[in-house]
Structures are given as structure tokens and as C-alpha cells.
């Protein structure tokens, strides 16, 4: 599937309720305002972009993450069954995860991103039940970013010792002894 076709298909799974209400209420002067609404309100709860990346990027809200991932995997048209990379990222104000997915049947790719502003107790749903490779990768993210995963079978530090203080790959991590600041 091309990126455009993927985007059309996936965006329909998560319609934005606000978009429907607004488009109904402005029936009278529809023609004038329709273009305006389309710009301001996204028809889908997902945000798509291809800018600055060779893949199609989807930004999803944490509460929709697991449902989206499940659909991406089981839908026969997307069939994204191979999670080849799971990356934790600290964007400064936000913490998040980047999932790189590939379909072994159709050979198309998609990148799913999820972000949260909660730096004290960031939590996402685990995707271990969909891709078993996520079990190790999520433990690595927990270890280095302090991101928690709901329903993870064995969430504990993977590389560091249990008593380690802080999360080293966060941008605000300080370790005066072990880190050389250039």
C-alpha cells in the first residue's frame, strides 16, 4: 500500500467527534466555512506527517495507542506484523515512544509515535501482547527513560541495577562522576 492509501485507511478508524459536530452545526453557511473548518479541526484523532522522514508518521494519543496498534497488526490490508524498532525519546517537554513497523506480507512501513507531557509518571499501554519483541524493548525504555508500561509481564530494569538512581537517557539526567561534559 502507498503511504496515501495507508493514511486514508487508518485515519478512518479514529474519527474526531469534534469534527462531526462542527460540520453538522454549520449547515446553513456551509460553503463559506467548510474550508476553514477543515484547516482548524483534524477529521481524525490521529495526526499524519511525512515531513523530514522517509516513512509515514502517525501521532496517536496515549489512550488510543493500544487500539491503533492492534488494528494495524490484525487488519489484513495493513498487516503490520513486524515491530523492528522501538525507541524511547526525550523531546524536552515531552517523553515518548517511536514504533517502527513493517508488514512482512505487503512490505510497507509505518512509524507510530506517542507522547506524554507527564514527566513524573509517564505511562503507556504495553504492546507486548501484540509483538513479543516489545517485552525486551519496553524494559530497555523503562530502564533508560523511566516510562512505565501497563500490562507488561515483567517490568523491571534490564541493563542497570535495580538501585540505580535516575534515568540516564533523559536529557535532564546529571551524573557528575560518569559523564564527561564537553
Amino acid at each position, binding site marked *: 500500500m502507498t503511504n496515501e492509501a495507508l493514511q486514508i485507511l487508518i485515519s478512518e478508524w479514529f474519527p474526531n467527534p469534534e469534527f462531526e459536530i462542527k460540520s453538522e452545526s454549520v449547515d446553513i453557511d456551509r460553503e463559506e466555512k467548510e474550508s476553514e473548518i477543515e484547516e482548524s479541526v483534524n477529521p481524525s484523532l490521529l495526526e499524519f506527517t511525512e*515531513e*523530514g*522522514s*522517509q*516513512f509515514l*508518521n502517525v501521532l496517536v494519543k496515549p489512550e488510543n495507542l493500544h487500539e491503533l496498534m492492534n488494528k494495524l497488526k490484525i487488519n489484513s490490508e495493513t498487516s503490520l*506484523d*513486524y*515491530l*523492528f*524498532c522501538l*525507541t524511547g*525519546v*526525550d523531546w524536552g517537554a515531552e517523553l515518548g515512544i*517511536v514504533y*517502527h513497523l513493517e508488514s*512482512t506480507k505487503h*512490505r510497507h512501513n509505518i*512509524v507510530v509515535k506517542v507522547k506524554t507531557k507527564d514527566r513524573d509518571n509517564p505511562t503507556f499501554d504495553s504492546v507486548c501482547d501484540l*509483538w*513479543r*519483541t516489545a*517485552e*525486551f*524493548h519496553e524494559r*530497555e525504555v523503562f530502564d533508560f527513560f523511566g516510562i512505565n508500561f501497563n500490562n507488561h509481564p515483567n517490568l523491571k530494569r*534490564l*541493563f*542497570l*541495577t535495580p538501585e540505580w538512581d535516575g534515568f*540516564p*537517557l533523559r536529557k535532564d539526567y546529571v551524573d557528575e562522576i560518569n*559523564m*564527561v*561534559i*564537553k
Partner: protein
Amino acid sequence: MQETATLNNSFKSEEYFINMGPQHPATHGVLRLLLTIDGEIIKKVEPDLGYIHRSIEKMCERDSYQQIVHLTDRMDYLSSHINNEAVCLTVENALELEIPDRVKVIRTIIGELTRIASHCLWWGVMGMDVGALTTYFYGFRDREMINDIFEETCGARLTMNYNVPGGLMWDIHPNFIKRVKEFIVHFKTKIPEYDKLLTGNVIFQKRTKGVGVLSKEDAISFGVSGPVARGSGYSCDVRKYHPYSALDKVTFNEVLETDGDTFARYNVRIKELWESLSIIEQLIDNIPEGEHRVKTNAVIKLPKGEFYQKVETARGELGVYIISTGTKNPYRMKFRSPGFSNLSALNHMAVGGKIGDLVATMATLDLVIPDIDR
């Protein structure tokens, strides 16, 4: 008779923990496995990682792109050239640099030589793990020839650092082509020896057939790649699906086995030796003339954006993921290492088997611990 034996048996069956590693010859590095066993039967394998974690990803955030290349061959040191290539390709693609054909061909030849050297070492150690010590010497003898070629051209034998963003550190040594050809002639007579010595050995086959079975569906779910996945019939060769450097100019077969056991994974690697030789043969007489390097700025700044590049190392799919904000350092750098995902399937493959089977299974996973620990 049997009844009395049961009556007199005062031993209880009980689960207990045992440590395998971090100093254990079969773990090939500092990997600690926490085994839960009942008698000789494995109930659970839990890897304990991080003994040599250097946090390369964090170091990358402070390093320039030229410096990062040098860190990557300390990950999977047996595929050092291919690791370097992965970072260089990512940077070159991001900068949209036009790389000379000469560079692409040389990179592919050395990449395949690296793969052969890695598989030679694996084959030697594989035999040793299951009790055939002789293979170790045979494997290292042939690997030595490749290391000599590397030493002459790259100046180093293991962590070569031959790639730089934009091309190669320097041109190939005048002897390079001659010595590679000599190696091909030599090695073609040696692979049948490997088969005679180990592949056809009855004891070896009994140790490996039906051991550590991984189905195709599980292989995909665990994100397994490389020869391990291809032993389960999962077609995933990055060289076929996302060809890089000169790999789109050569013809070769992707080796697939369907049994998914230790013996299948073993066979995949042995057959890959032939395929790698074939790739080198197709390229070695046709190295185009030209520059060995294009000029880049002394300070490389990638444009703002995200860049992903995957390559096929001797162990499987290595992914390099760079998030750039337009400065001279990456904002976030992630290495998706093949060994890490392959290791995650170990528990699934080993449960229900014996400790000796675990050693055989681990031998065909071909783990390199710095690749897992990064």
C-alpha cells in the same frame, strides 16, 4: 521392578535456580543467564544484561558524526565494517551525498568478507560448544587470511574504521584484489571440509536436530532477524528487500530453511558462506575507477528530521535511527541491534529442553554481547 524403584526413590522433584555466566565459555562474553530448572529440564531462562553496557547511545548525543562511526564497531565487533557502513549510509542519505561507485563496490566486498570472517568464527565456536574442539582451529585458520587482507588495506584487523561519512578512509591496497582472489580459491576447498568435519557428523546432528525450535510466526513476533530468522523460513534479508551500496548490482540467493531448529540455523550460515563468496566474485574484477571519497564539511550538520537505515550484519538486521535537530550532534541516536531481539527469543526456544540443548541453541543464535549491551 519399576514400582519398587518409585517407592524407594526418596528424591523430590523440585525447581531451583542456577546461574549460567557471567563467566561461562558458552555465553561467549559477559552474559548471565538465570536458569530455573527442574532436574535437567529448563523451565525458564532469564538473561541478566548490562555487564559491559557503555551507553553508546548517550555518548552519541555529544559526539560528531565522524566520531560516532568509531563507536559502532565496538558494538558487534565481528561485523565492525557493516556497523560503520550503517552509520555512514544514514549520514550520507541525510546529506543526499552522491557516493562514487568505487566506494559502494569496495564497501560491499569488505562487508561480505566481514560476514565470512564472522561466520568462520561462529562455525569454530559452534563446534566447540557442542564438544568438537577441532573446528575452532579450522575456523580461525581461514578467518586469519581475511584479517590479513583487512590489516593490509584498513590498517586494523578487527575494528577497522575503514568507512567515513562520504566514502572510505583511504584507497584499497595494491595487493587487495590479488589476495581476495587467493582467498576465494582457498576457501572454496575449505567449506566442503567444514561439511565433512561437522555437518555430516552423527553426534553433531543428534545434538542439533529438533533442538531449540522457533516457528516462523514466533520469529516475526520476537523481531528475530538474520540467519536465525531464515532458519525458521522467514524471508527477511535486508540485502534483498532494502539493498544498499552495491548489493543491487549482484545476484545471490537468500538462504532459507524451514525446520526452525538449531541444525537449520547452522545450515543457513554454512550456505551463506557460498553466497557471500559468489557476491565477492561478481564484484572483485569490476571495481570501478574513481575517487575513494567525496569531500564533506569538516563539521557535518544533518538537516532537521529523522533518518533510518537498516543493513544486514552477520547477525541480522541492524537499524540506525537518528533524530536530528540540525546541529552537529544527533538529538537522539538509536541502534536497533540484531542480537538484542534475537536474545529475547531465547527463553521461548529453550524452555522444555535440557541445559546441553540450551548451549547448542545459544551457539546458533551467535550472540555478541557488546551488540546486545551497546
